[in-house]
């Protein structure tokens, strides 16, 4: 059985323009491998509901919520961030991935999106549906926690 075919071109354009943003956001929330997996599932959901999705003011934010909920539905344990490969260890503290995992989800989302993927505070605020000031608070608290956990970093 083949379902009714939505507007392929418009969805393809949407996916191409926004997949990186959605993938980064879900990597921040769920960890690398799972975040990418959830981004694929969320985009699949978006494809199925494209007619409704394209009328939304913030479709990426909506798919971000979908991806996080799907991840919770799989009942998996906390986020998993890959260990630092040996050839990167001079530049990246080996304890950094574990420290990221121990942040609260909102702190981690702010830290990863701003410092790993160079999002602006406004972009993160739009995604999370909070004010820029709130994102700044999450970011500062997350960076403080990371410094405390890792130690010896500026």
């Amino acid at each position, binding site marked *: *059985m*083949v*379902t009714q075919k939505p507007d*392929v071109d418009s969805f*393809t354009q949407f*996916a191409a323009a926004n*997949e990186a943003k959605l*993938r980064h956001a879900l*990597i921040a929330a769920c960890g*690398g491998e799972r*975040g*990418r997996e959830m*981004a*694929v599932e969320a*985009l*699949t959901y978006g*494809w199925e509901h494209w007619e409704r999705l394209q009328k939304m003011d*913030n479709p990426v934010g*909506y798919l971000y*919520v979908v991806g996080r909920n*799907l991840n*919770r*539905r*799989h*009942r*998996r*344990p*906390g*986020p998993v961030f*890959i260990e*630092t490969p040996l050839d990167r260890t001079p*530049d*990246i503290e080996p304890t950094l991935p574990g420290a990221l995992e*121990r*942040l*609260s*989800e*909102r*702190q981690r989302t702010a*830290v*990863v999106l701003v*410092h790993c*993927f*160079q999002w602006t505070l406004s972009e993160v*605020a739009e995604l999370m549906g*909070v*004010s*820029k*000031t*709130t994102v700044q*608070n999450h970011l500062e*608290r997350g*960076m*403080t*926690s*990371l*410094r405390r956990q*890792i130690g010896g*970093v*500026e």
Partner: protein
Amino acid sequence: MTTLESQLAEYGELQEEMFGSIAVDEITTGIFVAKRPAGRFSLFGRRHPLALATAAMVAVLLVIGGITYLTRQAGGPDPVDQPVSEMFTWTFHPEGDNSLPYYPNTYEVAGHDGGFIANGNGNIWTSTDGGTWSRGPIGLGLRSGVAGGFLAEGVDGSGAGNGTYWRSADGESWTEVVSEAGQPPLPASFSWLGLNVDEILDLSLPASLGPPGAWSGTVLKVGNRFVAYYWNPEQILEGAVSDDGQSWERFETAAFLTEWFDFESPRSMGDRGFSDRLWSGVFTIGQDRVLALTADLDGHHLWESTDGIVWDEFASTLPEPLLSPPGPGTDPSIVATHHVTALSTGWTLTPWDRPFSPAGSSTYFSVDGRIWATLSPPDLIPDAPSSIRVVGDTIFFFTYSETSEAAHGLQVATVDDQVTES
């Protein structure tokens, strides 16, 4: 020395290398052959007779279970006078021009002088009866309904996207809240309760609660006093009490309190040094009795306080799903409780991010905090995403079903007049 920022940037590049772009055929392949992703998600995503039959069966079991549970508890010290299903009168308002956007596009609802205000799809919405809604201004995030008006979060007029607060007496005309110094006087996470909207400008925060803008925490109104819990600049949870919202006296926080501010996503629970318990909700009945719900790896615990400062564990029969410890490897945050709200006749309790929580897909209601029973609109489709908000004695149940567009809309319930508090 490599800075933390540069390490994070490097780590981001590593993530991009390993978990890079998603090709369109990864997204769409399954759709053209009408397959959904594997997992539980597929059951109610199809209009398959088996799924619908299962849904109906689950609905019947939920109703029977709720009634049985209630009946079983009826001989206890605080009997509930009548089944929960008879305590509320539900009215369904289908999706339409004069209806709120359905879940998950509506986020908060607040009440004021018998009217209601909500934010959804980026707009403020107002209603006098809870069923018929009018679209208002764009771009404000509702924070709270307060005496004399409403408080909303938005951006200032600088064009830089800085967060600030707005107040309104009617939900339609909004004024930015600005102090005499020209700076927003309110903390970033603002939850003052029961204040007149015109008095917000008079609030001041002592230096011990941190500078404005960096403050994060929440405030309870217990009796005639305000009790604040907040994170100080050293990231330590502190408490303060005030009679007037101006002069604050600090107190030592109870040991079981943990990361209040992040209770919705408490992955860092335990790293604050208080305990391994997660504060997952607090709710008030009457003017001077507060209950708090905490979660840990053993399940949930209910605490009682008459002043918001000293807490005692409260003997209660919580809904069975909340008593069960999470399974091996389960994120404890999943069993946390998101919404705990008070009506004049009792409390509602909703497992976090329902219906995705293994704690169950039901909302529970209790007259006294001891006995809990399932609360649902009579024709709610089980496992369909929905969300509950409680304003005064009105319950808003946003419903959405992938199997029936007729279910898109808003269930509004009012408490039956003959319900009495036990």
